[in-house]
């Protein structure tokens, strides 16, 4: 995410670093480029204007021009302003109430129904007891979609049984029913609507008044262009919107909408959808996101993700083995499997800082297939072979190649890489491991 913006901004900073001192012209040029980068990332032009003005003020106030390290100072200013624009401190979702009611609204196709399912899964993982309420009686088969989504996250769905067209009465009744069923959070999936459709907006207004949700969340597609501001403003003007969920913030999404929507509604971004799987919903941390946009990486989120996804007993076992300077192909396979649980590797790598050892590294170039082949090779070995792959002879290698659908060359390559890894592990000092884990 934010790839284009990341590259452009880093280009600007690199250029600044090249200039020992920064003249007014150079600073103006940098600000112009920051403006272009933001506009190309679909940040609303008005938001961009204010943003660039703020940076200019700060830069002048902090005397960047006379500074000896102007580039760092500009980065710092931009980082602070970005974080402020995104809402500084993250504000988690409020779900109190009996039940807490979370109402999702937004344009057609912004991803409300999928998000409703993700949200139910997210809450369940926190030990809550959610229920889904189908309030989209407009789109063909929307209720059926929610039913299927509900099934896949193992959450019950309340939907009108007959062709009821009174959404307001139905939802109010469903919430009472949810309470009786002992559910503590009710997620209401409303129909997508255009913000200029007065009739449907009025209906939504009535619904909100009647059930007074704990959270009324505007679900916005992160790929939205300049119009993001208009629809967000219209929704938050017509309803007491209390937060935003950004969807489809993955792939090559420029995500400019993330920066604009928060700025114009003044409401925090609570959650972001980052993939197609039902587990792909993350809490939103403005400061981390700002770091990410500036290519400083988001190691904190990565660690949290690892903590959630990794089997901690398994990780401990591996760490102990590493401490004993042991590392076999079995360990490598376990490691690969654990990593895959965290999601696509390219997505993980994109959370790391872009400078340092990863300079010029393109996360999309990681070949996930190759890793699967490695796993297949290891799976085709016998246990003794896994423990001592250096002892493989030609006939064993041919057998393994046949078994795993690979070639002897690939097995040789793996053995060679294994030797290097082993050397590294043997030579590793205790402090290195601590440092790698973020301690040292």
């Amino acid at each position, binding site marked *: 995410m934010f790839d284009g913006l990341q590259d452009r901004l880093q280009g600007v900073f690199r250029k600044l670093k090249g200039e020992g001192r920064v003249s007014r012209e150079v600073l103006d040029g940098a600000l112009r480029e920051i403006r*272009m980068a933001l*506009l*190309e*990332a*679909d940040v*609303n*032009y008005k938001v961009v204007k204010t943003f660039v003005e703020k940076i200019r003020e700060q830069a002048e106030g902090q005397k960047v021009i006379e500074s000896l390290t102007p580039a760092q100072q500009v980065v710092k200013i931009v980082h602070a302003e970005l974080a402020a624009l995104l809402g500084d401190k993250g504000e988690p979702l409020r779900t109190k109430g009996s039940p807490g009611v979370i109402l999702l609204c937004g*344009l*057609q*196709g*912004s*991803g409300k*129904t999928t998000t409703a399912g993700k949200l139910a899964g997210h809450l369940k993982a926190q030990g809550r007891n959610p229920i889904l309420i189908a309030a989209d009686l407009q*789109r*063909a*088969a*929307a209720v*059926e*979609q929610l*039913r*299927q*989504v509900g099934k*896949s996250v193992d959450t019950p769905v309340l939907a009108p049984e007959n062709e009821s067209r009174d959404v307001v009465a139905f939802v109010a009744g469903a919430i009472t029913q949810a309470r009786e069923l002992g559910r503590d959070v009710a997620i209401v999936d409303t129909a997508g609507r*255009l*913000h*200029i459709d007065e009739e449907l907006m009025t209906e939504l207004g009535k619904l909100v008044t009647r059930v007074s949700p704990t959270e009324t969340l505007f679900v916005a*597609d992160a*790929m*939205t*262009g*300049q*119009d*993001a501001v*208009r*629809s967000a403003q219209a929704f938050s003007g017509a309803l007491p919107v209390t937060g935003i969920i950004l969807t*489809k913030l*993955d*792939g*090559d*999404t*420029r995500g*400019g*909408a993330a920066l604009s929507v928060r700025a114009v509604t003044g409401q925090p971004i609570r959650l972001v959808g980052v*993939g*197609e799987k039902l587990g792909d919903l993350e809490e939103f941390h403005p400061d981390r996101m700002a770091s990410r946009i500036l290519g400083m990486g988001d190691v904190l989120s990565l660690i949290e993700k690892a903590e959630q996804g990794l089997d901690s007993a398994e990780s401990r076992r591996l760490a102990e083995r590493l401490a004993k300077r042991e590392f076999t192909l079995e360990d490598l396979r376990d490691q690969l499997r654990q990593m895959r649980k965290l999601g696509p590797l390219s997505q993980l790598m994109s959370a790391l800082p872009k400078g340092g050892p990863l300079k010029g590294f393109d996360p999309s170039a990681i070949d996930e297939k190759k890793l699967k082949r490695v796993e297949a090779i290891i799976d085709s070995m016998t246990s003794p072979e896994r423990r001592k792959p250096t002892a493989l002879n030609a006939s064993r290698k041919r057998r393994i190649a046949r078994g795993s659908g690979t070639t002897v060359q690939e097995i040789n390559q793996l053995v060679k890489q294994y030797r290097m890894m082993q050397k590294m592990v043997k030579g590793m000092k205790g402090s290195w491991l601590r440092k790698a884990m973020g301690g040292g």
Partner: protein
Amino acid sequence: MFGRSKTGPPAGEEAAAAEAAGKSSGLWGKLKRGLLMTHTEMFERLEAAVQDRAVIDDTTLEMLEEALIAADVGVETSLELVDNVRKDARRFEGGDLLKLKERMTDHLSILLLDAPQPPLEPEGPVVTLLVGVNGVGKTTSAAKLAFRAKSRGKKVLLAAADTFRAAAIEQLTVWSERLELEIVKQSAGADPAAVVFDALRAARARGVDEVIVDTAGRLHTKENLMAELGKIKRVIDREAPGWSRRTILVLDATTGQNAVAQAREFLGTAEVTGVLLAKIDGTAKGGVVVAIARELRLPVLYLGVGEAPADLVEFVPRRFAEALVG
């Protein structure tokens, strides 16, 4: 090269416009009203500014640039367009200030017309494949295209090849019932190519004129998409050798510059014939199609302007340009 003060629309386009004017003038009107509602406070400001000024100066041009960017035309394309206007202004020494909007419309039309314009609806039997990312409106667009073909006396068959998204098949089925159209479907999770295979077999047996295939939307799994579309293509080659084939990329008008990346990606994986720009009935202007025409030379074929099955119009570059400028 854009020296003429007014670039008239080519004859073919005028005919198309005239034809479209019949039934769909109401829809264009709707589109224009939608755009007028927001009627870019900017272009109004621009007009006000222009009236007070003696020449087109940098401030005016900057406002013009902002107006274009606000319509999602994109930074680069906007800069180029503004540059063209600047050159014009120099040539006319600012004498023609009030014609600024007209000139802008000309330049936009030229960009849009520059993409190759394929025949909109080929003669004889056709397979129409709808592709696009999630949530752009492929299924609704499939229904609209089917309705259009049916109301022109064609026998249409829908193929529910989005076997991935929850309830996509049900959604298309509801449409087929509402519009009284034939549909070929399998269960969720089935091989989309197998659905297309069944659909083409059925189409040939029943003497169908157009098969409209709704495929699954996806953001990321480009490789799977390539494999899936490749397989669907092979099935079509084998099962419908004499048929014309159209691959229509559905884009959401509210999408920003990401739409260019989407179009590029789909162009790389499928032979895209043109674009259907959906959801243009809101306040979004869909200006990104200008950037797509300019950068990828991909033409727009249709506009989706509402939720009813009849809410689909043929794209007319000049009218779109006019609606964009306001």
